[in-house]
């Protein structure tokens, strides 16, 4: 086999092996370990791009692990969908690994940095493995890897609350994973196979089997739990709030996307449109839940004073958008949903990286701590503004593109009230993000007055405080700005992601 033919496995094996040897080579020198993390992520990003490219040229790639022909062996499948999500996740993982150095040094104790990076790579491996696999049990194995790595990375957060957040997530995540495993077991019992393509062939004649129905129910509920779809979202705010900034950024930008991808795979690749629409009312239920998620996430975000927590609630709303498009399930809405996988990764990535930089500089996470930051950290705050405008859905940003397609999809399906929901949610987004932006640019940093303030001092404190520019270090700034820049680039040149997504939608909906 040539190198090109082996790319589908290398994209997983490179991060995996780097995770294994980081604890070994890190003993020699920690900076080697860091360089290793960056280069492994970079390589797997490059390979992902090349895979997507190959798929565009020659179509679906199937890789047989161990040389065993599927369904007897495990199959890796790169098609438009998995190629697209692979590129998103490996890109975000790469950008954040570049950003990570300083932030991790500040938020994680010295001797824990090596295991931290090792687990970071394991988390990435888990995500990538979930995306590329064409085998439903192999999917579960990688869900386990990513979940375990996720729990550990969250629990390392500085406050004790991080442990509780991680524990709650562990319990709920384990229930979710168990449900998924039960579903997989039931599917195996009904069909005798674990290969997704094989399942797709064998399932249609079993659509009325109660075993298959139960399996589908358990898998969807399990995935919803891990996706933090309303009402399964309770674990998410604490997790994003208390995890180290780098981990919050990685989880917020990729974790929900990967699970949403798996949901799409199960609903449209393992099962079919026909099953989702005619046999079980799954799209109706998802529609209902996603609408609540969109509104509730936005409303709850308004009530937050901690910026990470605000972003977390906003994520719950954004997950709602992704599921909404899947639930409407026509071409336009699916396009909106899948583009939102990329767009939300970009904008939430930007916002969380900005917050990480602010934490690095000031050690504070309150929304009020951002006041007057426009002068102190102009570039970082510019990135924040771009991310926030995207979240609101201002034209020429990526957020607008997703919402536009979702709204069109809703109209086409004759569900005009959904357009109203999208508008209301955008307004709510505007409310809570404007509050922050206003603070950044139009407020002064509240000056801490000393107790013995004389009259002269208090007069001085009324004058605008001149702050020296003190932006984030270059290593953190550049990744943030790249993500923010992409929010604009893909907002203007929306045809690039749309051209990738269109064949995916056609494939899924069998148009």
């Amino acid at each position, binding site marked *: 086999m040539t190198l090109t033919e*082996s790319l589908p*496995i290398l994209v997983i094996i490179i991060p995996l092996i780097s995770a294994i040897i980081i604890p070994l080579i890190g003993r020699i020198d920690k900076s080697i370990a860091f360089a290793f993390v960056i280069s492994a992520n970079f390589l797997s990003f490059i390979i992902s791009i090349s895979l997507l490219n190959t798929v565009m040229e020659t179509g679906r790639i199937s890789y047989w*692990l161990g*040389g065993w022909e599927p369904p007897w062996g495990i199959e890796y499948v790169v098609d438009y969908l998995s190629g697209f999500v692979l590129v998103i996740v490996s890109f975000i993982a790469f950008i954040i690994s570049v950003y990570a150095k300083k932030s991790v040094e500040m938020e994680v104790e010295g001797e824990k940095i090596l295991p*931290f990076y090792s687990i970071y790579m394991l988390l990435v491996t888990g995500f990538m493995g979930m995306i590329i696999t064409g085998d439903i049990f192999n999917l579960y*194995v990688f869900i386990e890897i990513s979940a375990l790595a996720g729990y550990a990375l969250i629990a390392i957060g500085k406050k004790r609350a991080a442990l509780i957040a991680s524990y709650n997530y562990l319990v709920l995540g384990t229930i979710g994973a168990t449900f998924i495993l039960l579903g997989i077991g039931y599917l195996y019992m009904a069909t005798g196979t*674990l290969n997704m393509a094989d399942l797709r062939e064998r399932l249609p004649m079993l659509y009325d089997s109660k075993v298959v129905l139960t399996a589908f*129910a358990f898998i969807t509920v399990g995935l919803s739990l891990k996706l933090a779809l309303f009402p399964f979202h309770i674990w998410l705010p604490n997790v994003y709030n208390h995890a180290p900034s780098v981990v919050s950024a990685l989880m917020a930008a990729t974790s929900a996307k990967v699970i949403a991808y798996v949901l799409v795979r199960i609903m449209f690749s393992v099962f079919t449109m026909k099953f989702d629409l005619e046999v079980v009312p799954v799209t109706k239920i998802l529609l209902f839940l996603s609408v609540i998620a969109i509104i509730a996430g936005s409303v709850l975000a308004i009530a937050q004073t901690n910026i990470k927590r605000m972003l977390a609630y906003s994520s719950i709303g954004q997950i709602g958008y992704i599921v909404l498009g899947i639930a409407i399930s026509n071409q336009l809405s699916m396009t909106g949903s899948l583009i939102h996988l990329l767009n939300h990764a970009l904008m939430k990535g930007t916002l969380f990286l900005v917050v990480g930089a602010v934490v690095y500089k000031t050690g504070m996470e309150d929304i009020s701590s951002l006041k007057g930051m426009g002068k102190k950290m102009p570039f970082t705050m510019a990135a924040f503004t771009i991310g926030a405008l995207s979240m609101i859905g201002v034209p020429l940003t990526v957020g607008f593109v997703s919402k536009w397609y979702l709204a069109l999809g809703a109209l086409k399906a004759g569900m005009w009230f959904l357009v109203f929901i999208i508008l209301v949610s955008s307004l709510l987004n505007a409310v809570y993000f404007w509050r922050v932006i206003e603070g950044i640019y139009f407020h002064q940093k509240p000056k801490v007055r000393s107790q013995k303030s004389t009259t002269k001092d208090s007069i001085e404190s009324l004058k605008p405080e001149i702050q020296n520019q003190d932006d984030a270090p270059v290593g953190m700034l550049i990744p943030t700005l790249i993500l923010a820049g992409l929010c604009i680039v893909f907002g203007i040149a929306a045809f690039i992601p749309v051209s990738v997504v269109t064949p995916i939608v056609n494939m899924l909906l069998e148009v």
Partner: protein
Amino acid sequence: MIDLMLLLFLVVCAIAAVSMKDLLSTTIILGVYSLIMTVVWTRLNAVDVAFTEASVGAGITTVLIIAALSRTKREEEGQEYGMWSKLLNPQDLKLTDKQSPLLWLTSLFIVLITGAVLIYGTIDMPDFGDPDAPANIHLAKRFIEESYEETGVPNFVTAILASYRGYDTLGETTVIFTAGISLILLLRRKSYICDTTIKEKEMKEHIVIRTISRILIPFVQLYALYVIAHGELSPGGGFQGGVIFGSSIILYVIAFGLEEGRKVRIFREMGDLLNSTGVLIYAGIGVLCLLAGGAYLEYDKLPLGSEKMASSLGIYGIEIGVGITVAAVMITIFFITARHER
């Protein structure tokens, strides 16, 4: 008949484990639960699974939970009433702000729904042991009939785990590795002063334990190596063998203590090294297969004589890898969770 008895035991154990307030008793009951499961697996002719359940579920999990308990309290807190009184009189519940009767009823409702759905699913299940069940006619047929010819491994459970689905096993070994490294990340303290789990003095009196351990440990270790090496022919393999080997070291520590800091450091360094080494061997063999021109983990392509020979040797290699990582992680987990004296 005996199956029904076993099932009944399982249910009794499960209820007892939940309602018990003493966490140590709960742990032991869970061990008993696993032991019964072992018998159930054996009755189902799933000897490999039974073996794993015995060594992992009944064996090392119990020890590790007890080690974790040594850091906390033995009694469960915050439960004024046992489970049964809760079930019978919900108004007895101690109402904290998070524990309203409404929440309690909702939880009960969700659990009942989940159970009902699971039972609903059983209606269309194929009959027990039905030779025409989909699981028996589709993939399993080739695994049973051709695995020896295709992989050179007589035990076809090993053939599936290590060859047909060898990549899943690599994934599972990675899960074990992740668990070990997560604990290193979260719980390891910088300074180990003294690592004695149970005080030297207390244990000196237990001459019986020490003598028996001294005699047993070499045999346990030999057996562990046998289980790893013989996995191709009989039930067992790297996973079970690794767990048994890990247990033997844990037994040594429990019986003799690790009074000298030096020994702790050796174990710790070795543990860190071996955690990675095992899974690296596994992943590395896969890479060698790539270099030899095959697919990942396609052992036949390794330049080691005939295809069958290469496949068989490749599987030996990965079993050893699994064994090393599993044993090392078990030891690491034990050292990290068990109480250190300060």
